[in-house]
């Protein structure tokens, strides 16, 4: 998973004319995925050493598991590991509205060159 993340960020980085210094990578990770944020954090730090991402911070925002019960026409929060079916009518968890996200939201980066570059120049590059 870490490899998949680094490859996707690398794709973006290589598409930039000025190969910027990446300072932060922001992710959204749902609770109903196979990704453990602490594990990803550790692997990211280890695997980015001496690469273009060295020193970059991984910021992970978790989203809760929320399902929608069509029988009851309402949302509920399944308790992972304990109860997934609708607590009211026991219908199986079917329509997951939140919790499956695995997304790179945004990248924060800084200019690699001198300060004489104006912000406007960069803004037009965006």
């Amino acid at each position: 998973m870490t490899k998949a993340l680094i490859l996707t960020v690398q794709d973006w980085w290589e598409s930039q004319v000025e190969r910027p210094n990446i300072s932060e990578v922001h992710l959204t990770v749902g609770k109903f995925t196979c990704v453990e944020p602490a594990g990803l954090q550790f692997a990211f730090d280890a695997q980015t050493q001496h690469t273009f991402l060295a020193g970059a911070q991984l910021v992970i925002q978790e989203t809760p598991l929320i399902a929608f019960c069509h029988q009851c026409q309402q949302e509920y929060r399944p308790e992972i590991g304990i109860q997934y079916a609708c607590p009211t009518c026991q219908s199986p968890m079917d329509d997951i509205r939140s919790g499956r996200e695995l997304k790179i939201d945004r990248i924060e980066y800084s200019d690699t060159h001198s300060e004489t570059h104006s912000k406007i120049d960069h803004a037009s590059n965006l």
Partner: protein
Amino acid sequence: MHQTFDAALGINLLHVNQEGADHNRAHFDRWGITCLNLMSSPGAGKTALLERSLPTLRQSFTIAIIEGDMTTELDADRLRQHDVPVIAINTGRACHLDSKMVAGGLHRLEHDYNPADFDLVLVENVGNLVCPAEFEVGEHAKVALLSVTEGEDKPLKYPVMFQAADCLLITKLDLVPYLDVDVDRIMANVRQMNARATIICVSAKTGEGIEEWHNWVRSQHQSTRTAQICHSAELQ
């Protein structure tokens, strides 16, 4: 002072894998192949199931196996006894097959055979209930196996796998008399998160439930073929 900037991406982390999976599936569709991805924890009986099924399924289908294993070819060698092409993929330290590895396997199939001659490609994934659930390889359906010795709580503990499964095989049914296990409880736990999966109890040892599993494979192949034929007719 350095100026900082922001780039909004909004890209799925598994974007690259997903593209590869779609690409593999397009190949399967062109060749008229149905691909099933078999997943379970280590030792749940994926290889034993295939050993039991191949003699029968081979009578109706031309089959190739893609065998994912971290290091050895022990499973691949077991299946080669059944006179089907077995493409072994050693994943090294990776605990799952990804779409790129399977694409490599398909290139080998293309090199050694005419892929259009095949009806079924059965992918035996690396034994692991976690990561394979997230990494599609281009399959048309996911088959999860859970053996009765693993405990009733496993669907609750590894929900992503059991939620994604199209077919769940509860294996090693012959061991139930020796265990303190409630098979109905396993099914109820799966049903908490998956209303649509076909659940079949099987024993590769005694053959119980195997015919029902084969019927599921046949109907899966039929519906995939129908979709493939309709799709290619639309394109023309």
